[in-house]
């Protein structure tokens, strides 16, 4: 089935490399193939075929072969991957033409898509890890596409190191699951039930492995480096799709392969999720680099997804299948939503980048006049990611809240205490996200242009616009018809946690009812209609009754004209109050003001230093340790022959004495 298709896809794209024509051809081909795969996946998901389709190719481990399998879960993620992949290809049809060296992007782009599909399809440990690491490799190559820009080398370095750290963790996890006689096929692993200690170990390793790829705090350090470095459509893929593949890996291992969970697992997952959600958005608020800001938001959303998964684990451990299904649905729904609006946001950022050549928000502004379409798309995405109705972001967070509200039925006290706190963190992160996107959109697109580049920006090409508007439409549809999405996930939750939410298609007025009508319900369509109707009512009324006179005039300036756009609020200034509130404890923000003495005409200087405590706390020490150890070891290169001989001598004598004592 689609396996062969994708493999051919990658090969054929790797073959085709250079030139603008090749650009078109490759991206077009990727678009077509992804569309086909998407169709297949959706067809599988919607047609209630319960039997998973499997194939086995004589590749990979010789005595095992490469197993591939499509069940509900993988079908769902296939849909996510190929949706993102296809739209990105569409976007890249236009955007990719700005790439200085297409030869460094094209082959890896296609291979990257293929690798992600393979991860989702793989049905044995070897194939899974091979595709997983291949995914990292190709995306690394894509990150290094602009290799001559400063800092990118480091970004790629940190990225690949973290990636293979994760792979090694997963390697160990699968080693545990497979057992000494190497039963690497997922079917075998499912059949064997690991002991509690073993399972806990595997969970920890899976968290390390999938978390380092998904960007879970404290393994998130590579995202803010790699996403800005990569070309924008690649960042969109990495952030919107690849992190979801990581989530898939986690779900596959923990929910599917690992058997029934313990309740304390969910404690870990929930804690990490909450921490990622809150820290991610707080760090995002402090950024001026648009793409870095978006990268930190990926951390936040991954946190939200993991909160959903953690709740699902907690419920499943207490045999509350319906609740587990609700939580899992919330998580998966957010997976879909995030892939939608985060890709859209990165497209927007890419459009801005290609139009102004700037990533620094402090040098943008007023772009809504120059590139209205992009601005509109970006606005829609901002509303969606800020979890505001009637768009899709709200629905998944609403579902998560509903799941949290069931949690008092859980007996364990640890969870009773933890879950409300996590809920608070979730609410906090939602509010902060809204604040952050007011900043992002406001400073970038509104106000007056802060640099000539922004002054003369031009709207981007039609392919990019098309891709963006498709996503806007999808965000809206997923927001006002959530019932269909939820119904599509029924087989997934059925397979994973053995329960599913009530079918929403039957509910009148297309509203969604997670548990019971009396308990809670939400109807995106009606809310949307209400807003539309009442807004138009207001417009009509005003335009009937009120005067139509409109005059353009200068903005009110208290009588002291400030033509200089530098007098606007900057991104840093905008975030300052929040930095004052949270910054002190979260990232040790230090503000220093140097005010010249009165009469001195020198400008006052104000600078803020924000530290990433996680980097300073965890990664820097490790770096230093390795460096010291290497320095110590290095003398071994410079010994004299006699010393080397003494090494031999010592080794010999010690081994001999071992023998002498041994026997």
């Amino acid at each position, binding site marked *: 089935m689609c396996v062969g298709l994708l493999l051919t896809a990658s090969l054929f794209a790797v073959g085709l490399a250079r030139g603008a024509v090749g650009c078109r051809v490759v991206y077009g081909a990727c678009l077509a193939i992804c569309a086909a795969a998407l169709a297949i996946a959706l067809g599988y998901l919607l047609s209630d075929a319960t039997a998973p389709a499997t194939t086995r190719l004589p590749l990979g481990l010789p005595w095992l072969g490469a197993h591939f399998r499509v069940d509900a879960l993988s079908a769902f993620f296939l849909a996510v991957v190929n949706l993102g992949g296809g739209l990105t290809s569409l976007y890249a049809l236009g955007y990719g033409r700005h790439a200085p060296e297409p030869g460094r992007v094209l082959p890896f782009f296609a291979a990257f898509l293929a690798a992600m599909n393979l991860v989702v399809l793989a049905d044995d440990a070897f194939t899974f890890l091979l595709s997983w690491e291949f995914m990292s490799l190709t995306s690394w190559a894509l990150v290094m596409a602009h290799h001559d820009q400063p800092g990118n080398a480091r970004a790629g370095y940190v990225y690949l190191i973290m990636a293979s750290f994760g792979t090694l963790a997963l390697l160990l996890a699968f080693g545990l699951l497979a057992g000494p006689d190497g039963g690497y096929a997922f079917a075998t692993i499912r059949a064997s039930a690991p002991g509690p200690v073993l399972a806990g170990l595997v969970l920890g390793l899976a968290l390390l492995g999938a978390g380092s790829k998904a960007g879970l705090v404290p393994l998130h350090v590579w995202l803010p480096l790699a996403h800005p470095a990569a070309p924008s459509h690649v960042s969109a893929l990495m952030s919107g799709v690849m992190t979801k593949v990581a989530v898939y890996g986690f779900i596959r291992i923990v929910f599917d392969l690992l058997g029934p969970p313990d309740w304390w697992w969910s404690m870990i997952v929930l804690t990490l999720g909450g921490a990622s959600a809150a820290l991610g958005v707080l760090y995002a608020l402090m950024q001026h680099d648009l793409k870095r800001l978006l990268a930190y938001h990926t951390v936040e959303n991954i946190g939200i997804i993991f909160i959903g998964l953690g709740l699902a684990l907690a419920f499943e451990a207490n045999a509350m299948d319906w609740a587990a299904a609700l939580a899992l649905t919330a998580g998966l729904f957010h997976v879909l939503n995030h892939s939608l609006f985060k890709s859209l946001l990165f497209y927007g950022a890419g459009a801005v980048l290609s139009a102004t050549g700037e990533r620094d928000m402090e040098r943008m502004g007023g772009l809504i006049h120059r590139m209205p379409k992009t601005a509109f798309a970006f606005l829609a995405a901002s509303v969606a990611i800020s979890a505001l109705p009637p768009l899709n972001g709200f629905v998944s967070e609403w579902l998560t809240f509903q799941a949290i509200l069931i949690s008092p039925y859980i007996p364990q006290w640890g969870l009773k205490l933890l879950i409300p706190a996590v809920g608070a963190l979730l609410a906090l992160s939602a509010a902060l996200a809204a604040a952050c996107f007011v900043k992002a959109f406001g400073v970038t697109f509104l106000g007056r242009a802060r640099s000539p580049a922004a002054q003369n920006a031009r709207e981007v090409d039609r392919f990019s616009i098309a891709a963006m508007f498709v996503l806007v439409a999808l965000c809206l549809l997923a927001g006002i018809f959530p019932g269909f999405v939820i119904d599509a996930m029924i087989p997934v939750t059925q397979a994973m946690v053995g329960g599913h939410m009530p079918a929403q298609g039957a509910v009148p007025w297309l509203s969604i009812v997670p548990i019971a009508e009396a308990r809670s319900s939400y109807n995106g369509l009606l809310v949307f209609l209400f807003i539309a109707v009442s807004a138009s009512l207001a417009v009509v009324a005003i335009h009937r009754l009120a005067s139509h006179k409109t005059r353009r005039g200068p903005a009110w300036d208290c009588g002291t004209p400030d033509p200089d756009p530098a007098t606007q609020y900057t991104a840093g200034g905008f975030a300052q109050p929040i930095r004052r509130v949270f910054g002190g404890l979260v990232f040790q923000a230090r503000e220093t003001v140097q005010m010249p003495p009165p009469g001195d005409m020198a400008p006052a200087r104000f600078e803020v230093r924000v530290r990433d405590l996680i980097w300073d706390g965890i990664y820097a020490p490790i770096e230093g340790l390795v460096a010291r150890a290497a320095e110590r070891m290095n003398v071994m290169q410079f010994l004299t022959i*006699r010393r080397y001989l003494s090494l031999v001598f010592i080794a010999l004598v010690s081994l001999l004495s071992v023998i002498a004592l041994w026997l």
Partner: protein
Amino acid sequence: MSQLVFDIAHLLAGGMVLVSFMLLYQARMYGLLKVFALHAFVLALSVAWEAWTQDAPHLYITAGIALIVKAGIIPLALHRIVRRLNIHRTVETVVGIGPTMLLGMALVALSMVLMLRVTGDADPLAREDLAFALSIVLLGLLMMVTRRNAVSQVIGFMSLENGLILAATGAKGMPLVVEISVAFSVLVAFIVIGIFLFRIRERFDTVELDVLERFRGDRA
């Protein structure tokens, strides 16, 4: 008879160990060379003895090689080198004679423990020889490690290799002994020539005296 055979072999092998200790003890270069010649000579004797007891005539060749090459040519060659390249006449030690001797004792003890425990059912002659051979090998290595001059290191190596020959001949009916001894003579010859060609006066570590900063690779 066999008792006598055993005693003589034992005597010779033990004598070699003793000479190894003398090697360790030597502080002067020429003395070292002389003692080494003695070492080789004793080796030749014991190999010949083995040849006689095992009536394996080919071992006589080995004995001859030992006698001519190791006891004759090489010491003379080294003698010349020492004079030609006017190397210090004293053996520079790293650890110092006394401690070295103690270490040597420990090594001999170690090898005894190993061997005498090890070869429970091997025939006693081979056992003794092996024990002594092992201690000679270890002593030779010890000498290479604790001496600074190239020449004394070469001598350490050669005494080590004498130990090997002893072991090889001690192992009854071992084939290829001759070939091996020849091969080793070639090896030693290489080393000596190397010393001569590369003008290694002081130590193995550097190849020429006139380079002051010493290259050990990868010093940026």
